[in-house]
């Protein structure tokens, strides 16, 4: 009797956990399906290669927005990656206790700051002094969002590297910083890369911080000190416009964005496969 009750409990929990897992996957599948349904009809070669058409003319594309997004993500990575990774290594390897604690706390707070506030910050320190909206300001805003995420993932991943490896290096008469650079960091590489991809995926879709910084642009990129188009901005502009054709393009833009993020994550997974710390 008790065995049956135990089996029944076990089965119930199994089903519940499976259902929870299903619920996790559902939103992504639903979103993807919905985007396909709504946006696929607006997808064609022009969409990827042409500038937006003036209001009233059908067709046109968002090529400038795709390029703009890539440029600003690139800028953000240039700013956020070195700072985030080096800082994360410091947090994990430092023997001091107080300063890392403070940095960790601040990074966590920064992580929770709404992205629109980061946008206002970049507006104040970059846009106002330069007296114009720019790709630079947008890239910096995205970089500020990137830093705490990369910092914390790097720290976690470096901490996962077994101490035996550090001791092996030190025992060979290798200097501590070289042990960190040549032995610890490579061992944590896969984890850090995955974390970076997650962070990049997050900033790729950020809209709010770009409203005050990149502004948007209906033309090709005209220099880092000029306003620039971005995919999320374009989606936002098209989605709130009153034109049916623009709505379709907004759906298609969202589809492109999510596909890019998906492909980037997949590429990171494939590139780092089988190179994990734990055997």
């Amino acid at each position: 009797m008790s065995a049956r009750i135990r089996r029944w409990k076990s089965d119930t929990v199994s089903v519940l956990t499976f259902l929870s897992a299903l619920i996790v996957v559902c939103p992504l599948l639903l979103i993807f399906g919905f985007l396909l349904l709504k946006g696929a009809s607006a997808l064609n070669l022009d969409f990827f290669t042409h500038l937006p058409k003036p209001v009233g003319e059908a067709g046109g594309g968002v090529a400038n927005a795709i390029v703009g997004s890539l440029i600003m993500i690139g800028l953000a990575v240039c700013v956020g990656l070195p700072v985030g990774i080096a800082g994360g290594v410091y947090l994990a390897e430092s023997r001091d206790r107080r300063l890392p604690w403070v940095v960790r706390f601040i990074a966590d707070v920064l992580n929770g700051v709404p992205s629109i506030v980061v946008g206002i910050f970049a507006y104040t320190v970059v846009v106002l002094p330069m007296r114009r909206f720019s790709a630079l300001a947008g890239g910096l805003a995205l970089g500020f969002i990137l830093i705490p995420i990369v910092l914390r993932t790097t720290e976690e991943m470096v901490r996962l590297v077994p101490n035996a490896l550090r001791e092996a290096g030190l025992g060979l008469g290798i200097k501590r910083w070289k042990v960190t650079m040549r032995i610890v960091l490579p061992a944590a590489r896969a984890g850090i890369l995955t974390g970076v991809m997650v962070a990049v995926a997050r900033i790729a879709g950020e809209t709010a911080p770009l409203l005050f910084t990149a502004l948007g642009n209906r033309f090709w990129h005209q220099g880092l000190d000029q306003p620039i188009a971005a995919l999320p901005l374009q989606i936002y502009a098209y989605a709130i416009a009153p034109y049916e054709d623009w709505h379709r393009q907004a759906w298609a833009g969202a589809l492109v964005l999510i596909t890019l993020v998906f492909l980037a994550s997949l590429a990171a997974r494939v590139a780092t496969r089988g190179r994990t710390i734990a055997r």
Partner: protein
Amino acid sequence: MGDGLYVKGLRAWFGDTLVLKGVDLTVAPNAVTAIIGPSGCGKSTFIRCLNRMHETVQGARVAGQVLLNSENLYASGVDPVQVRRRIGMVFQKPNPFPTMSIFDNVAAGLRLAGIRKKSQLQEEVERALRHAALWDEVKDDLDKSGVSLSGGQQQRLCIARALAVDPQILLMDEPCSALDPIATARIEELIHDLKKELTIAIVTHNMQQAARVSEWTGFFLLGELVEFGVAKEIFTTPRDRRTEDYITGRFG
């Protein structure tokens, strides 16, 4: 040729806890000195003091002297990194660098010491692998990952890695505790061959192993060196009652 180590009044702490309470001991050149004792007696701490690894742990501290060629390794101005070049170490669990190939594992110490010439690296790597009795098993797979080897091979890879930088002394901290009897026998054979060229100090909790491989044996208990002498005598006619109790299996 190996060199001897002369340890005088060595004390070591973890934070406020004194774990080595003044140890005097000589590690004779070109011989194997074994350190035995129950868990927590300070034998690992002791051996990690000999190449200044103990102090890499947060809050760890050392006092006393360790002399190598009459040079005190704990004198001010001595670089611990240089000490570890001269006194290599093999750890309890095989710990090859997981992102490196077999070749790169052995070459790691040389490369990071600034040796770049490919022919010289190849020569040194082969020499070290032959020394560690691993060359014949891996010579066709030098590009494979170090962690693809079996446990015993991994440990010999770690020995080769330590030998590559040409140390005068090799410290081994329970090098066989994660290995099966056959792999253990191979490592013991290797220890026997290596002592012709360098000095070896080995920590082990396996008394048979200590009796098999060592010329000199020290028995540690609660952070003190209870007895030290010729291995044969320690295992047949111990002078101290506590040593006798331990080697006859009455405790520990």
